């Protein structure tokens, strides 16, 4: 069962700077992506979620409980900050052991959790080296490990994939999916769109401290009326198909390509219905449909333009 995270009129400002402005949302999904440009307020929101900061106005709650003051709730949270400066003279094993014991785990359980977690993030071979000798990718893994070692219910990760090599990204993404599948709620922030899209369909879009959109990428895209949907259609007879589509009132533009055509429509559902019907007739040789801007990048671009 995933935690329900609810924010009501949530605002945070630092002196004259408004970091978050009147956010209201309610989300309960295993993996939630927090997307926004640098300075959008992602890190501030994540710190509010784990109780590191107090809201200037409004409130945020996890299953109706407030992380700032509920110690029992905070035992169930894991937080990986954006910065990766740790205790440089400690080894990863020592560091994880202390961090886990601060969650109240007895020494033996903490040792077991440390070993398991180091193995899971692929740092077992480097467990005894001082942290200062670790590469950036290893530090990123260690950062995730310290958030994960005590087995939290909510894992809050601030840019966990920044600076990782492709293999590291794949491994950590797999780890996040496993955790989410096992019942852990995970919030991941990033300003790299494809990173998030590879992980989750449920996103929260922030822009200059304001909430732009929340929900599934596809649903958000459907709600953007100002921009027509673009659908690439692979077919054997594009000109005949173009003539058929041109009769539809919601089709705004048709562009021919080497493999078929790209159609721009104001009402995606009706367009897909029509293409499905034409495809079923079998006379035009339609063999593929691909939504070109039904992705996070397009959604984000449209919303922030």
């Amino acid at each position, binding site marked *: 069962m995933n935690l329900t995270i609810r924010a009501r009129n949530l605002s945070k400002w630092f002196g004259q700077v408004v970091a978050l402005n009147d956010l209201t949302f309610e989300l309960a999904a295993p993996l939630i992506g927090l997307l926004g440009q640098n300075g959008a307020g992602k890190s501030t929101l994540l710190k509010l979620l784990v109780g590191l900061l107090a809201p200037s106005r409004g409130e945020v709650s996890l299953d109706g409980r407030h992380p700032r003051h509920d110690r029992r709730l905070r035992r169930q949270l894991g937080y990986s900050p954006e910065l990766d400066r740790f205790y440089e003279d400690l080894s990863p094993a020592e560091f994880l052991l*202390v961090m886990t014991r601060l969650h109240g785990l007895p020494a033996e*359980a903490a040792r077991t959790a440390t070993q398991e977690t180091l193995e899971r993030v692929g740092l077992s071979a480097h467990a005894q080296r001082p942290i200062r000798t670790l590469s950036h990718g290893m530090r990123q893994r260690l950062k995730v490990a310290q958030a994960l070692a005590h087995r939290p219910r909510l894992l809050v990760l601030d840019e966990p994939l920044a600076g990782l090599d492709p293999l590291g990204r794949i491994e950590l993404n797999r780890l996040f999916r*496993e955790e*989410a599948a096992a019942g852990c709620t995970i919030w991941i922030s990033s300003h790299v769109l494809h990173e998030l899209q590879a992980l989750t369909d449920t996103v929260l879009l922030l822009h200059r401290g304001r909430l732009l959109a929340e929900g599934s990428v596809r649903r958000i895209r459907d709600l953007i009326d100002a921009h027509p949907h673009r659908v690439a259609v692979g077919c054997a007879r594009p000109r005949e198909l173009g003539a058929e589509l041109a009769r539809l009132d919601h089709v705004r533009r048709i562009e021919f390509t080497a493999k078929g055509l790209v159609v721009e429509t104001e009402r995606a559902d009706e367009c897909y219905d029509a293409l499905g019907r034409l495809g079923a007739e079998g006379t035009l040789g339609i063999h593929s449909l691909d939504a070109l801007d039904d992705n996070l990048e397009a959604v984000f671009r449209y919303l922030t333009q």
Partner: protein
Amino acid sequence: MVEAGADTGRILDQGYRRFTGARRPPARVSWVIALEELRQAWKEKHFRRVVWAALLPLLFFGVLVFLKRFMPMVGFGGDEGVRLFRVQQFWSVFVVFYVGRNAIGEELRTGALELIFSRPVSFPRYLAGKWLALVLAVVGIIAVPVCLLGLFELLWTPGSDLAHFARLVTSAVFASVLVGLAQGALMLAISALAGRGTAAGVVWVLLYLVLGGAAEGVSHATGSMEALALSLNGAGGGLFSNLMGSSTFQATVPACLAGLVGYAALGAGLTLLRLRRYRKGAS
């Protein structure tokens, strides 16, 4: 409300189980922090050297006590414990330097405090942990040698009784805890305000020396022995001397207690204010 997506997840058995056992009470967090702080300090070779060097006065006074068995005129007329306490206070300055200089400042500077406070660790428990480390270190460097010397006296000096030994142990522990609280609180405050370990260490040593000089100066100018309690050294040494009934020049017990408790409160207050500011997001 957005619900979970189209049920694409599956549970993979990785032999990984959530921790469902009993957790330690929150008070244990302070001990975890304190022991880790001491462990880190012990890793530093200079700190280890200071600790070993701090045992040399015990060796010297131990030899004196041993010789007194055969030559009663040797020594400081029964005040060896008080003298050793004062000497060990000198070493405690360096112990506090090594244990406390990075205690809070470095964590503030590097942002590692985020990791601590994202856990179920409150300010007071965090501060208590850091403080506890310093108190343990000071007690270890002052009270342990003094108690050992008392034990040597009990074993070797004719006419020594258990009651005197018990008084020595109690007084040494009590006075060194108060000295540790005062020195530790000031060091933590300096560390939190200075931000950098080395700078904090230098400021700490300078402050110790300046307070000592100022106390002597004020005492000399006013003719008041109470003014000696303005210095950490004078307050701690004076308190222990009074408790042991020594007749050396010193401030009275209330003045010494006021000095030590005052410095402890000042240090703790400044540190809490700095942490509170950090927690409000103004780091």
